[in-house]
């Protein structure tokens, strides 16, 4: 019987299955960061257990770390304690790799894994972080897990899972100039809603997805969780394999050839059955901007803020009304007329080198608009930062009046000092526009890196296609 990629990934990891279908899935890669792991390590220790296979662990500190003045260390004592707890835990149990605070390869866990070749096709990848779906770009079964599950994986190298349903999201055709992976995934979420993928594993396919770089595919898979799906992935093709060649933890020599032969099988067979299929026309996708407090509250740059009455479902009407109040927006306001106070270019969605190049292409020769208080550019990792500097992107940003920072999660979730002031409005390349996500009372509009840079230099949302 023809199998989906999901069937293949699933079946190759099942250790055993309970009568009700709950399976014990073997985990190949365990990514760890400081926020969701301390309680798991503590639980393990209290129970007198040892990690099953420490060499499956790749760890880094990213959520709490500051993005400037690294010479001062971590000034917030509670954040520092959390990062130091991670240092101590990894020292004690060991890991395949640890990129601590200030390490040259430190960065956001979902950027660090792939760029080091620690994420390989066919793996199961878990992390106590919902954006673990990012790694699906490499045809991995990549789950975000809770802290109890982090402990479970540490102790048993397995995760208890029930097989999900399979959804195929097919984006066919060619996107226009200035339309990016971020716009594609926001358009998908706009179409299926933030709960549209709940209970499903999503395979992203179609010519527009195949045309994306690995980095673009990571952006798409990253936000599968914003469509409600715990995992999202893309089949292996030449780009997957090219990307991994010579990465530090990728196999070499004879093993490489053997691995590649296997990886080539990681595609859905023709005629495989999906429980749901969603199709989008790439050519119809325009640069996207969210206007509300959920990623599904999205329109395009030519659009306007809707009115609650545009929605028939009463629960939805109520959420839209609440969102507009929180966002301080009036129905009918044109997206292009919305001014921003801050701009954030970063996060595991959009902080890789291509994202920074796209932002720099717009920023080049232009200046931050006077009404924009601050533009933060936060590379996803130390490696991304150095690459950007080698290409002179940092100089472009600085000349435009943007701030060039050290890597980390930064204002994606504002656990460190980078945050919005109450009432401030931000064009952000991150993945969540929830109330208070970027600081209490802060208002977030999700956009692509190019659109964020366009907002930075014009002071309001602007169709980046007019600036290219």
């Amino acid at each position, binding site marked *: 019987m023809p199998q989906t990629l999901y069937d293949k990934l699933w079946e190759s990891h099942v250790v055993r299955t309970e009568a009700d279908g709950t399976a014990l899935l073997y985990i190949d890669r365990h990514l760890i960061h400081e926020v969701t792991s301390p309680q798991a390590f503590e639980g393990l220790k209290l129970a007198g257990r040892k990690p*099953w296979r420490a060499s499956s662990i790749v760890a880094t500190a990213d959520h709490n770390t500051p993005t400037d003045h690294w010479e001062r260390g971590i000034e917030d004592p*509670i954040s520092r304690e959390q990062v130091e707890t991670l240092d101590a835990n990894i020292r004690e149990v060991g890991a395949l790799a640890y990129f601590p605070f200030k390490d040259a390869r430190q960065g956001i866990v979902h950027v660090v894994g792939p760029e080091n070749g620690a994420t390989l096709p066919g793996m199961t990848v878990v992390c106590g972080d919902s954006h673990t779906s990012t790694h699906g770009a490499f045809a991995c079964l990549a789950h975000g897990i*809770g*802290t109890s599950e982090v402990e479970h994986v540490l102790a048993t*190298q397995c995760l208890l899972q029930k097989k999900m349903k399979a959804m195929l999201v097919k984006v066919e055709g060619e996107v226009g100039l200035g339309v990016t992976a971020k716009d594609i995934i926001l358009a998908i979420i706009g179409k299926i809603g933030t709960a549209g993928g709940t209970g499903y594993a999503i395979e992203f396919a179609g010519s527009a997805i195949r045309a994306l770089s690995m980095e673009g595919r990571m952006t798409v898979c990253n936000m599968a969780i914003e469509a409600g799906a715990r995992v999202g992935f893309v089949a292996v093709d030449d780009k997957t394999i090219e990307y991994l060649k010579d990465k530090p933890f990728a196999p070499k020599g004879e093993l490489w050839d053997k691995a590649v032969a296997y990886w080539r099988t990681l595609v859905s067979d023709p005629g495989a059955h999906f429980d749901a299929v969603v199709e989008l026309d790439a050519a119809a996708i325009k640069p996207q901007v969210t206007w509300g407090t959920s990623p599904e509250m999205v329109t395009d740059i030519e659009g306007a803020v809707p009115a609650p009455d545009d929605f028939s479902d009463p629960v939805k009407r*109520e959420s839209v009304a609440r969102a507009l109040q929180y966002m301080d927006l009036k129905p009918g306001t044109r997206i292009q007329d919305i001014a921003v106070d801050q701009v954030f270019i970063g996060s595991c969605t959009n902080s890789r080198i291509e994202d920074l190049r796209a932002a720099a292409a717009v920023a080049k020769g232009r200046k931050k608009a006077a009404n924009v208080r601050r533009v933060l550019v936060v590379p996803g990792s130390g490696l991304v930062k150095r690459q950007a500097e080698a290409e002179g992107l940092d100089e472009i940003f600085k000349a435009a009046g943007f701030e060039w920072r050290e890597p980390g999660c930064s204002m994606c979730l504002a656990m460190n000092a980078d945050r919005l002031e109450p009432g401030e409005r931000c064009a952000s390349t991150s993945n*969540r526009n929830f109330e208070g996500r970027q600081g*209490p009372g802060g208002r977030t509009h999700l956009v692509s890196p190019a659109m964020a840079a366009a907002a930075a230099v014009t002071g309001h949302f602007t169709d980046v296609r007019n600036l290219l």
Partner: protein
Amino acid sequence: MRPFTIHEGLVAPLDRANVDTDAIIPKQFLKSIKRSGFGPNAFDEWRYLDRGEPGMDNSKRPLNPDFVLNQPRYQGASILLTRDNFGCGSSREHAPWALEDYGFRALIAPSFADIFYNNCFKNGLLPIRLPPAEVDELFAQTYATPGYRLKIDLGAQTVTRPDGKAYSFEVDPFRKECLMNGWDDIGLTLRHAEAIRAFEEKRRAEQPWLFA
């Protein structure tokens, strides 16, 4: 983990869809390296008028009188009634920890986000999915009846109203058994350590590059 068999308790309504885990427990509380004590900060940004930070004395903070859980009639509630896609967003397990620590034992909604749903079972918290129409009825009854209580029987998979009408709900047999017995997943899984080891050895032989 505290076993869950039959629970009877006061219902509190949170009439919003898409309540995310940032709202359930704001990020500044994630800096803790402990797993208890999050209850006073559950729904912190809605619940208090000031900005909450870890280490504050929460009993001295100004409560937001407009937030439903602060109304006197819902004090002591142990069943939270809410709307679609509850628990969406970040995978933080601090969200079920906070709800459990607040005193909730069960949650009722038309749907829950996947990771959150899963996390609940690991913490003795029972998330119950009921069809939207039944959730609507429960909201109406809760608003109309001060002291409105429900009885939840996990074994029978029913939610029973004070007037005797019962709704039944679905739950995975495996999750149900673990929750009813208060079993720790890790202990259960380690009973299969042999099978895991055998699987691992086979995998190591077939795909050695995964074990570098």
